[in-house]
């Protein structure tokens, strides 16, 4: 979707609020939102790509005027409501509806492990269409659905720089339509191609792009 989240290359944001060795959290409630988002019960279809798509669907004016963990909080509410696990009335009142069911299968503290993960890469029968060094042109998905091809890198000519094997395809997985492992490449663009003659003639931008968004140039 052409959402507000897709902000690479936008003008007008001003200086970066850079603080050397800055901390991840700035308010006491922020780690609670991170913790809740990780620990809450979710349906099996509601994976990482769906979570990202929820963040993208936070209305643009709210997105821009909210802090990072405020957006996470909105997306968490959205996901729970869409999963049918909370109603907006419950969220607004802060109380469970008397008739609602209570589960007892929430994630236990012992199950928390930052070093445990499911792989995104998987061997597939389909051979990669492109090899490192191939010239490619990117697609231009006109869709309200989830995609990870940024606007600034659409309809652009580049060169395949790395091949990563086949990875879960966010465009389908975010919508519960399967992981559809698809060959993934890092594509190298000259700064001139993306950012015009004002940019340095020797600089490059690299973007990870799935095969379905690439054609041979």
């Amino acid at each position, binding site marked *: 979707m052409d959402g507000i989240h897709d902000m690479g290359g936008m003008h007008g944001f001003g200086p970066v609020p850079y603080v050397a060795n800055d901390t991840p959290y700035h308010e006491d409630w922020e780690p609670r939102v991170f913790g809740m988002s990780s620990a809450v019960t979710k349906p099996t279809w509601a994976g990482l790509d769906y979570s990202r798509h929820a963040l993208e669907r936070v209305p643009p004016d709210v997105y821009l005027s909210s802090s990072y963990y405020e957006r996470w909080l909105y997306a968490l509410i959205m996901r729970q409501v869409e999963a049918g*696990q909370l109603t907006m009335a419950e969220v607004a009142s802060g109380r469970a509806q008397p008739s609602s069911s209570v589960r007892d299968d929430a994630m236990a503290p012992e199950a928390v492990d930052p070093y445990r993960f499911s792989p995104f890469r998987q061997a597939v029968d389909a051979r990669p269409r492109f090899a490192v060094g191939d010239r490619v042109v990117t697609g231009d998905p006109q869709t309200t659905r989830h995609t990870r091809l940024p606007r600034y890198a659409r309809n652009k000519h580049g060169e395949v720089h790395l091949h990563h094997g086949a990875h879960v395809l966010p465009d389908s997985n975010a919508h519960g339509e399967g992981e559809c492992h698809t060959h993934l490449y890092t594509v190298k663009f000259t700064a001139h191609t993306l950012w015009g003659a004002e940019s340095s003639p020797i600089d490059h*931008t690299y973007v990870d792009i799935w095969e379905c968004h690439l054609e041979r140039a």
Partner: protein
Amino acid sequence: MSGDLPNPFDEHDELAHLPSDPALRAKTLESLLVEKGLLKQKTVDAVIERFENDVGPHNGARVVARAWLDPDFRARLLENATAAVAEMGLLGLQTTDIVALENTESVHNIVVCTLCSCYPWTLLGLPPAWYKSYPYRARVVREPRAVLAEFGVTLDASTEVRVWDSTAEVRYLVIPQRPAQAEGLSEEALVALVSRDSMIGAAKL
């Protein structure tokens, strides 16, 4: 669940009914989720604790120091960083597929996620606020030299800048240049020298 997702916030003016203070909003939601059996408070505590203490830039710094000291490891890291980091037992959530990028006199790499906030959690911890900020996400792809100058990193016009936009589950780790004063230091001393920001490409050592 499939297809085009409606926005549950579109049709209702529901956001206006939530507590305006985000701290209260978060607290209210947490107690509601607990009441409905969808969340255990102790699990939230465990997530916060483990992401604060068990992962973080000390892990990334170990990878960098080892690459500086051990030419064979450096070669393996640059060839296949996922396998090299797996050797050290440091793969994990948001850190499943890795590419290592070496900064040199002639090339400076810097990493961003323009679409959200993708970041190698086990190697660098959770991202700092500036990395997730709109100005960084918007500007570093278009004008990396101006952003780096604001960070205090000035580069010669002859140094190539490579900006890596983390749009997939590949995570990028910058191997900063080893500073001249680091000659002869122990691995432990080198680990202490490597800043988190240098492994994003936002600082030099």
